[in-house]
């Protein structure tokens, strides 16, 4: 019996190839999206799970509101890790690290290597994060101040096949490290990815200076809440002396003034998807992407499922006779339902097979866009296949059940007599389904336009500086840093080098923050401080708002000059900032050195658009490590070659390595852009599946109305009139779908946009555009069929009946 079902299923598919292709391909695409999303989610939720006892590891952080300046960052002071280890009974271990957020050049003999991800870590690091040691000992590897641990890959690059243990690694020619361990790259994904670990055992005792990331691992069975309470109590005591020393008030007074300061603990397994704080080690993922992708996968599956239901019931006239015969020869309704469900499940399985092929085909592209490293054939393959099978069977049952019940209900006498009026039922249901389908498609179209509007808005937003002709080159050695100001003339000899300057960091980098106070005020405010040179503002094209820029003649070394951005002026709440004095050096109160505020510049962005502009203060310094060159638009490559030649003459040991500032800053947008691109692809996919379904339905309608069309044409209807008749109904459905899609998308988009500090106004245009697009797609799809029907010879149509 089952064999018979399968046989009929295949023959029926073969006979109705167009429908079969629409159904199977649609579902295959839907399953492909589902499997990709599943792999993506699997990957995104796997972070940190490879550390032993990962669910007992927490990262500390600070949430503070000081003088209206909010801070939410996973940073911590030097002595914290040690305090955890020595003063808390619930703590198994704790470690502090400082990630290096710039490229480091290391050398062994003549081999140079640029390390992108280096970190300073204390001697407990490998006890909290259990990297696998190939050589050396996790317990003691970072005990000595000159100890360094390399990953296997880094060691291989630097030492080749030679044993690295005990060898010297030169760090930027400034310091010698001894290799004390080689570790395997971490087995799984984590919120940090390091290639090189350098010992960090020296530290200050100050609690108010937060330059580390500290991780604490609790003992098995420790009461987290009790520990957290105890930690807060203990650490708030620790900061008391510092608060009194620096701020001249007690912690109680500090809090009473409306300030807030609190230590936080964050489970490391939550970091990747849920943590978007300042001073993250790397840009983390976002749980929103997971929600959106799940949503899209569901919509795509729904759209494909609706195709299946619609086409099956629409075509039911063709199956009616079969139903009749089967009933007459003894089939019960149950048997028929089983048969039709078997058919839909068979189609689902063919689709599943195709889907796995498509997943393999799409994965490289997906990985490329999302910057992931997903792989179908990984440890999760069994899980993936099981999940896919589950979806497939569920889909087969879900999409197949309506047609199965619908078809099996036919009365044999009616259908065997050729009376198919009853089989034309289900039209209302079909309309409802088409509306749902187009609602889903329209939501995706509007969503896509809004996402791209936001991304393009961020691209075109006035970022306050011009980065497209500016290249950034790190200064790698002390002599180069010291003498760079004397070299400027060498570079500017080339007329295409328009400006040369330096700064401690550039837009797209992590910033530094310090406490500042105006003269005559007890209040201190955290400001981002940036050290620059005299040509910085010209080089970046940052606009002056008030006062003057730094000036070699007017500024002198004994009294620093300061330039603030507009936000700092607002936050400091000063009426006439020029001439006011400010300092970040409070030593012990007696020898505070105040500097003059000489100018105000317009705000410019350092961070991405999900963060507001920070209050910034800039001053002149020679101890800054990044050079920048503004070059003319013409002959850029020649100019860069010139810079490289001259640079390498000055600094032969450290080759010229540059980045364009706009590209560097652009990486802040990259995650959003990747997301947008993926959304675009998935939307196009969903639209294609919808259009295929509509095509099938339209061709069915045209076929069903062949006789009517014939009669109308005999009576004088034009091709246009016939097409109008055939398309009108579908257009109505698409319009109704839009009525549902608009408010749903409005709510979803509002939610998404709230992620951005700088967001587009919710425009009406995407909605109108999406409606028009949906109409055009529907019209093209339907007209194609309608045109054929309208142009067919009426004689054929009449004979057909």
């Amino acid at each position, binding site marked *: *019996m089952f064999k*018979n079902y399968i*046989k*009929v299923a295949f*023959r*029926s598919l073969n*006979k109705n190839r167009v429908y079969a292709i629409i159904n199977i391909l649609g579902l295959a695409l839907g399953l492909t999206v589902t499997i990709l999303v599943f792999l993506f989610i699997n990957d995104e939720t796997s972070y940190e799970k490879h550390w032993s006892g990962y669910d007992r590891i927490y990262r500390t952080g600070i949430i503070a509101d000081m003088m209206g300046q909010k801070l939410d960052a996973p940073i911590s002071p030097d002595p914290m890790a040690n305090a955890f280890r020595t003063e808390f009974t619930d703590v198994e271990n704790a470690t502090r690290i400082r990630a290096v957020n710039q490229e480091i050049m290391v050398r062994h003999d003549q081999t140079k290597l640029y390390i992108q991800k280096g970190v300073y870590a204390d001697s407990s690091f490998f006890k909290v994060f259990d990297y696998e040691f190939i050589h050396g000992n996790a317990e003691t590897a970072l005990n000595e101040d000159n100890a360094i641990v390399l990953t296997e890959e880094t060691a291989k690059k630097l030492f080749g096949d030679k044993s690295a243990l005990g060898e010297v690694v030169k760090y930027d020619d400034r310091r010698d490290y001894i290799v004390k361990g080689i570790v395997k790259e971490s087995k799984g994904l984590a919120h940090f990815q390091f290639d090189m670990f350098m010992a960090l055992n020296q530290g200050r005792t100050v609690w108010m200076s937060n330059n580390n990331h500290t991780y604490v691992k609790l003992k098995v069975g420790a009461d987290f809440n009790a520990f957290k309470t105890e930690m807060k109590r203990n650490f708030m005591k620790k900061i008391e002396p510092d608060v009194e020393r620096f701020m001249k008030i007690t912690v109680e007074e500090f809090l009473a003034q409306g300030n807030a300061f609190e230590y936080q603990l964050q489970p490391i397994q939550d970091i990747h998807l849920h943590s978007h704080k300042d001073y993250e080690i790397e840009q983390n993922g976002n749980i929103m992407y997971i929600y959106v992708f799940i949503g899209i996968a569901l919509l795509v599956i729904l759209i494909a499922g609706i195709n299946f239901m619609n086409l099956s019931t629409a075509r039911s006239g063709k199956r009616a*006779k*079969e139903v*009749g*015969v*089967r*009933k*007459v*020869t*003894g*089939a*019960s*309704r149950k*048997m028929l339902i089983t048969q039709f469900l078997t058919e839909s499940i068979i189609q689902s399985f063919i689709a599943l097979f195709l889907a796995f092929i498509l997943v393999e085909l799409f994965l490289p592209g997906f990985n490329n866009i999302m910057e992931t490293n997903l792989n179908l054939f990984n440890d999760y393959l069994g899980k993936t296949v099981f999940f896919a099978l589950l979806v497939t069977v569920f889909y087969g049952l879900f999409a197949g059940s309506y047609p199965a019940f619908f078809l099996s209900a036919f*009365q*044999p*006498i009616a259908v*065997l*007599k*050729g009376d198919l009026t009853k089989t034309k039922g289900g039209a209302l249901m079909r309309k409802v389904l088409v509306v749902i389908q187009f609602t889903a498609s329209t939501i995706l179209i509007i969503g896509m336009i809004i996402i791209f509007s936001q991304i393009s808005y961020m691209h075109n937003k006035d970022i306050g500086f011009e980065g497209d002709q500016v290249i950034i080159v790190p200064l790698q050695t002390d002599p180069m840093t010291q003498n760079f100001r004397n070299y400027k003339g060498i570079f500017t000899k080339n007329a295409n080098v328009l400006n040369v300057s330096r700064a401690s960091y550039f837009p797209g980098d992590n910033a530094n923050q310090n406490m500042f106070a105006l003269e005559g005020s007890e209040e201190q405010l955290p400001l981002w401080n940036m050290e620059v040179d005299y040509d910085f503002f010209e080089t970046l094209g940052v606009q002056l708002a008030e006062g003057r820029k730094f000036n070699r003649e007017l500024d002198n070394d004994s009294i620093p000059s300061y330039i603030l951005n507009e936000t700092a002026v607002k936050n400091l709440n000063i009426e006439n900032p020029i001439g006011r004095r400010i300092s970040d050096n409070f030593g012990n109160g007696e020898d505070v050195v105040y500097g003059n505020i000489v100018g105000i510049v317009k705000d410019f962005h350092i961070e991405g658009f999900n963060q507001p502009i920070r209050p910034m203060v800039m001053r002149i310094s020679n101890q800054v490590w990044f050079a920048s060159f503004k070059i003319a638009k013409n002959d850029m490559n020649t100019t860069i070659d010139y810079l490289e030649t001259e640079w390498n003459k000055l600094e032969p040991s450290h080759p010229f390595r540059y980045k364009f500032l706009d590209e560097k800053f652009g990486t802040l947008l990259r995650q959003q852009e990747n997301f947008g691109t993926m959304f675009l692809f998935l939307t196009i996919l969903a639209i294609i599946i919808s259009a295929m379904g509509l095509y099938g339905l339209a061709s069915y309608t045209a076929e069903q109305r062949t006789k009517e069309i014939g009669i109308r044409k005999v009576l004088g209807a034009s091709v246009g009139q016939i097409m109008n008749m055939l398309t009108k109904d579908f257009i109505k459905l698409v319009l109704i779908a839009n009525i549902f899609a608009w408010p749903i998308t409005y709510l979803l988009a509002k939610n998404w946009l709230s992620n951005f500090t700088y967001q587009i106004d919710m425009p009406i245009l995407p909605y109108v555009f999406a409606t028009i697009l949906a109409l055009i797609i529907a019209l093209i799809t339907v007209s194609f069929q309608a045109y054929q029907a309208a142009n067919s010879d009426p004689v054929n149509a009449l004979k057909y009946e």
Partner: protein
Amino acid sequence: MIKLNKLTKVYRTDEIESTALNEVTFDIQQGEFVSIMGPSGCGKSTLLNILGMLDKPESGSYEFLGNEVGHLNEKGRSDVRKKNIGFIFQNFNLIDELTVFENIELPLLYNKINASERKQQVNALMEKIGIAHRANHFPQQLSGGQQQRVAVARALITKPPLILADEPTGNLDSSHGNEVMELMCELHEAGTTIVMVTHSSHDASYSGRIINLLDGQIVSEKQNKLAQAAV
């Protein structure tokens, strides 16, 4: 075998009520070959559908093999039907996606006969009605007469005591029609009860009794001497 007593069937639409069968009463004995004749719309197909338990009567009683079946539900009717009744239609009603063999096999499948037995029975029957060489062809590859032979074979395969034929020769030319009628006679001779609806008095002449219907009522009923003589 069949006992109808004041069987009535009324079709209703929103406004119109039309009586398709009006208190029809007759019996059919085991082994009879009965033709039902009458003009279009006289109710003969309705009668055949009710006899075949494809449709329910409005009122009156229908006893089949001694049991009242007129008011069974669909499942009950389906059970009686698949064990006892074979159908032959004017338009053959073969399933296009199934081969000759598979079409004939279908009722056995629904009666849960095992594969080897199915094969043996179907092959034997195809042999008997002369379509064995067409076993793997699909219906659309056959002539009308061949298709109807397949349909007859399908109706016979479960050896049902009753065959209901609805204008079995209506879509066939006369020579193919005669072939099918010969086949029906052979069945009858082998003891099968046959009830046939037909327009054709030629076809009716093969049967042993002819019931004439008009406007849902029996207007005449006569024994067919010729056919009886033939037996």
